[in-house]
C-alpha cells in the first residue's frame, strides 16, 4: 500500500471536497461507489428476471391450453396491449412470438448477465482483491446507465404499435428484417446500448483486477470468483463487438434498406422484395453466434465462481485443485471463441466446417468437466454446513452437470439433426442457465446478503425457497427432454397440438407427435407456475430482511477467509478501514496448527515474510 498512499497524497487535495455528505441523488442514483452500482445492477436485473418469468408464464398457458383466454392476466394484456394483440385475453400468435423473443432477450441480456457479471462482480471483486473501488468509478456509473437505458428501450418496445421484436432472441435475418414491427429496431438499439454497457464494464473489470490488487495479492492468491470474472470480462470484451457489428448491419437493413442479410431473389408474401439483394443470411448467424456461444460461458463462469467460494467456505477446507480450476477456466474462455458454429449445423455450411466445430465442441467439454470434478472432489471429507447458500451451491453441481451432459448429443452434427430446434434444446440450455446459473446466483445472494445489508436472510424461508424451487424446476425441464426427442419443435404456438396425431395419408398410421407428449405441456406449465409461486418466500424474505432480518454479530458471519469479509459491514466508501496486505491464498480453512478453522488472507502470522510493513503498525489512512 506504500506506493498507493504516496499517490493519494499527491492528488488528494482537490478531490476531497465532494466526499462529505453528497446528498441523496449522488449517494443512491448517480453514485460512483462500486457497491451502490453493484446493488443497482442487482435490483434492476432481478426485476427484469421477474418480467422474463412473467412472459414465459403467460406463454406456458398458451402452450398448455391453446386458444383459451389466460385467466386474470389475459384481461390485463388485452387492456394494456390492445384487443388485436390479445383478443378477449387470448394470446395471439404475434404476441406469443414477441413474448418468446423477449423472454430470451430479457433473461440473457437483462437478467442473468447483469446479475452474474455486473451485480456480483462490481460489488464483490474490488472487495476480494482489496481495492478501494473499481479502476474507473465514473465509467462504472456510465455502464449502469447504459444498461438501464437499453433495458428501458427493450421494455418500451412492448407498448409500441406492432409490439416487441418477434424473431426470437437470436433475431435471425431475413425474418427479423422483414417482420412488420418496429419492435425489432427497438431491439437493435437496445442491444447496442447493452453492448456499450458491457464494454464499459468489462474494460473496468480487467483494468481493476490487473491494477488494483492489494499488496501481496498475487495472481495465484486471487479467489476463484475473481478469476472467473476476469475470464468472463475478456469474453465480453472480445465477443460482444461482433454482435454490435451485426446489430449495426441489421439496423442498416431495417432503416436504410441495405441488403446485408437479404439474399437476391428474396420473396416476401409472394412478392419479390424491393431491395438490392446480394446479402448473406448466414453472415448474421455467424456474427450472432460468435457472441452467442461465449455468452453461455459468460453466464456460467460467474456462477461457478460463486459456487466455488461457497463450497470452500462451507466445507471448511481448501477447494480441490485451485490452480487446475484457474487453468481450466482460462482454457474454457479461450476455447469458447472457436465453437460457435455448432449452433449452425443445419444451415448448410458444409460437413468440413461442421467437423471442425464438432471437434472443438467436444474439446471444450474437457475443461468444463475438470471444473465440475474439482468442485465435487472439494466436498470429499468436508464437514459440510448445510445452510441455504450451500444448498443452492450443492444443487448447482448436478444440475449444471445434467445441462452439460445433455449438450453432448447437440454437439455432434449427426444427432443434432434430429434434436435441433426441439424442446430438447430448451431443456438442455435451461438446465445450464436456470437450475445451473440462477441457482448459483441465488446462492450468492444468500451468501453476500449479510455483507451488503448487515443482516441475515431467514434460514427457514430460505430452505423452503430452495426445496420448492429445486423440485419444481426439475419438473419443468425434465419432461422437455422427452418432448424434444419425440420431435416437438421449440417455437410452436399451440404446443404442438396441430401436429399431434397427424396420420400418414397412405397407411393411416399416426406419424405426428404422440398425444402423451402433448399432455406433458400442462404438467410442465403447472410446474412452472408453482415454480413462480416458490419464489414468493424469496422475494418477501429479501425485502423483509433488509429491515427485520437477524443482525450479524461480526463482520465475518460465515467465518470466511477472503478479503470482502475483512471490511466493516456494510463496507464504507473506500471499503477498508485499514491498509490491506495479503499473506496467503484464498482458501486457508482448517490449517493445521492454527486455532480457528479459518485463516483470513490478510491475517499476519508470526514468521510470515514481509513483517517489516505489517498493516497493524501503520495508522489508518484518511478516507
Amino acid at each position, binding site marked *: 500500500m506504500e*506506493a*498507493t498512499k504516496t*499517490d*493519494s497524497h*499527491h*492528488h*488528494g487535495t*482537490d*478531490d476531497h471536497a465532494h*466526499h462529505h455528505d453528497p446528498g441523496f441523488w449522488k449517494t443512491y442514483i448517480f453514485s460512483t461507489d462500486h457497491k451502490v452500482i453493484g446493488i443497482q445492477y442487482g435490483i434492476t436485473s432481478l426485476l427484469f428476471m421477474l418480467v422474463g418469468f412473467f412472459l414465459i408464464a403467460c406463454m406456458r398457458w398458451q402452450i398448455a391450453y391453446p386458444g383459451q383466454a389466460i385467466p386474470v392476466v389475459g384481461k390485463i394484456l388485452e387492456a394494456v396491449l390492445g384487443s388485436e394483440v390479445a383478443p378477449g385475453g387470448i394470446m395471439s400468435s404475434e404476441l406469443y412470438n414477441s413474448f418468446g423473443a423477449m423472454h430470451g432477450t430479457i433473461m440473457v441480456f437483462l437478467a442473468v448477465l447483469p446479475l452474474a457479471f455486473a451485480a456480483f462482480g462490481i460489488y464483490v471483486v474490488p472487495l476480494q482483491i482489496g*481495492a*478501494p*473501488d473499481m*479502476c*474507473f*468509478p465514473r*465509467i462504472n456509473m456510465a455502464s449502469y446507465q447504459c444498461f438501464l437505458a437499453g433495458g428501458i428501450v427493450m421494455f418500451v418496445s412492448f407498448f409500441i404499435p406492432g409490439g416487441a421484436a418477434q424473431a426470437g432472441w437470436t433475431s435471425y435475418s431475413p425474418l427479423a428484417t422483414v417482420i412488420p414491427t418496429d419492435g425489432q429496431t427497438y431491439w437493435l438499439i437496445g442491444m447496442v446500448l447493452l453492448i456499450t454497457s458491457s*464494454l464499459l464494464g*468489462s*474494460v*473496468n473489470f*480487467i*483494468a481493476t483486477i*490487473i*491494477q*488494483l490488487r492489494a499488496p501481496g495479492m498475487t495472481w495465484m492468491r486471487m479467489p476463484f470468483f475473481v478469476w472467473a470474472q476476469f475470464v468472463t470480462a475478456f469474453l465480453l*470484451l*472480445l*465477443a*460482444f*463487438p*461482433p454482435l*454490435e*457489428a*451485426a446489430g*449495426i*448491419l441489421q439496423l*442498416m437493413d431495417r432503416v*436504410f*434498406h*441495405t*441488403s*446485408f442479410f437479404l439474399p*437476391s431473389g428474396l420473396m416476401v408474401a409472394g412478392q419479390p422484395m424491393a*431491395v*438490392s*439483394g*446480394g*446479402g*448473406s443470411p*448466414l*453472415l448474421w448467424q*455467424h*456474427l450472432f453466434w*460468435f457472441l452467442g456461444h461465449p455468452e453461455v460461458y459468460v453466464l456460467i463462469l460467474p456462477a461457478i465462481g460463486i459456487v466455488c467460494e461457497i463450497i470452500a467456505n462451507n466445507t471448511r477446507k481448501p477447494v480441490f485443485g485451485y490452480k487446475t480450476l484457474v487453468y481450466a477456466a482460462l482454457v474454457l474462455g479461450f476455447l469458447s471463441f472457436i465453437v460457435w458454429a455448432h449452433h449452425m449445423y443445419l444451415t448448410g455450411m458444409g460437413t468440413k466446417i461442421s467437423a471442425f466445430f464438432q471437434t472443438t465442441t467436444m474439446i471444450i467439454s474437457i475443461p468444463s468437466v475438470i471444473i465440475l470434478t474439482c468442485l465435487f472432489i472439494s466436498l470429499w471429507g468436508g464437514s459440510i454446513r448445510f445452510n441455504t447458500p450451500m444448498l443452492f451451491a450443492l444443487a448447482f453441481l448436478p444440475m449444471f452437470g445434467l445441462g452439460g451432459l445433455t449438450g453432448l448429443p447437440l454437439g455432434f452434427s449427426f444427432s443434432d439433426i434430429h434434436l435441433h430446434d426441439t424442446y430438447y434444446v430448451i431443456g438442455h440450455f435451461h438446465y445450464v442457465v436456470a437450475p445451473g446459473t440462477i441457482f448459483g446466483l441465488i446462492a450468492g445472494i444468500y451468501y453476500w446478503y449479510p455483507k451488503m445489508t448487515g443482516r441475515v436472510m431467514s434460514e427457514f424461508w430460505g430452505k423452503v425457497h430452495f426445496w420448492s424451487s429445486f423440485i419444481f424446476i426439475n419438473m419443468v425441464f425434465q419432461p422437455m427432454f422427452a418432448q424434444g426427442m419425440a420431435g416437438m419443435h421449440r417455437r410452436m404456438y399451440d404446443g404442438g397440438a396441430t401436429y399431434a396425431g397427424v396420420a400418414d395419408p397412405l397407411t393411416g398410421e399416426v406419424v405426428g407427435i404422440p398425444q402423451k407428449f402433448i399432455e406433458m405441456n400442462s404438467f410442465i406449465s403447472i410446474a412452472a407456475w408453482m415454480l413462480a409461486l416458490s419464489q414468493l418466500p424469496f422475494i418477501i424474505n429479501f425485502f423483509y430482511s433488509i429491515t427485520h432480518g437477524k443482525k450479524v454479530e461480526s463482520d465475518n458471519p460465515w467465518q470466511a477467509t477472503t478479503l470482502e469479509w475483512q471490511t466493516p459491514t456494510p463496507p464504507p*466508501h*473506500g471499503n477498508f478501514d485499514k491498509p490491506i496486505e495479503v499473506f496467503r491464498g484464498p482458501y486457508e480453512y482448517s490449517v493445521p496448527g492454527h486455532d480457528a478453522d479459518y485463516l483470513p488472507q490478510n491475517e499476519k502470522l508470526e514468521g510470515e515474510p514481509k513483517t517489516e510493513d505489517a498493516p497493524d503498525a501503520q495508522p489508518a489512512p484518511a*478516507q
Partner: protein
Amino acid sequence: MEIPYNSKPRPDTGLYNAKVGIWLFLASEVMLFGALFSSYIMLRVGAPEGTWPAPGSLLKVGPGAFNTVVLILSSVTVVLAWASLKFNNFKQYRMFQGITIVCALIFMCVKAYEYHDKFTHYEIVLKEGVTHYEGISHGTGVRSHLNLVDGHLVNQTEDEITLTVHPHHDDHAGHDHGAEAHPEEHDGDHSGHDHAEHAHGGHDAIQVTVRKSDIAKMESYGPWHSTYLAIYFTMTGLHAIHVIGGAFVIFYIWGPGAKMWKTDPERYVNRVEVSGLFWHLVDLVWIFLFPILYLL
C-alpha cells in the same frame, strides 16, 4: 478516497490505469472492425456474379488517397505533440495537436464531399422500350436488359429530372459497361475501362433531362443501392463517428481541458497519450479501409 495508480504506473505492471483501460478498449474496437472486415470478405466472396463494382469505378481514388495521407500525417503529429509535452514544451504541443485537429477536419470535409457525391449520383431505370434519351447505358448480368440513365443530379422538378451524364467516362464503369461487351472486366480488371459503348463521341459531360413518366425506378447511389455501397457507407460511417469522437476528445484536452497542465501535468500528459492511442486506431482502421474500398 483516491484510486491508486491513476497517473503513476503500478510498479509490477508498469502501467497507469487509463493505459490498461484504453488498450482493452482498443482490443474491443479491433473485434468490432474485425467483424465488419470479415463481413466484407464474406459478402464480397458470396456476391452474385457481376454485382461487385470494379475498383475505382464508383469511388474516385484521389480523394481517398488524399485522406489517407491526411490521417497518416495526423498520426505523426499526435505523437510529436505527446513528445513535446514530455519535453515540457507546451507551445509546441499546442501547435502539433492543432495540426492533428485540422487534419481531422480536413478528413471529414473530404468525406462529406465524397458522401455528397454519392447521394446526388442517380441511376434511373427507364421503362421498357424507352430508348430516346441521349447517354443511355445498360445494366450488367441479370440487369443487362435494362436501359439506364446514370449521372449526377442537376435539377429536379415535379415531372422532370436533369442529370449530368458522362457517357464514356470510366466513373461508372463497373455498372455501366455491358456484360456482353467486356465480360473479362468484372472483377478487378482495369484493361477495358476506356472502351466506348455508344457512338457518342468524346468524354464530354452531357445534360440529360428525363421525364418522370418514363422512369421505372430511380435511386441514388446510397447504401441501399448495392451491397458494395452498403458496406462502404456502413464502415466509413462508423469510422467517421470514431474520427469525430476522437477529434472531439483531442480538441477538449487541447483547448478547454488544458488547465490540467498547470494543476496536474502528469495526468494531463497521460490524457494526451491515451487519446493519441485511440487516434492511432482510427488511423489504422482507415489504412485497411482505403485499399479494400477504393483499390481492390
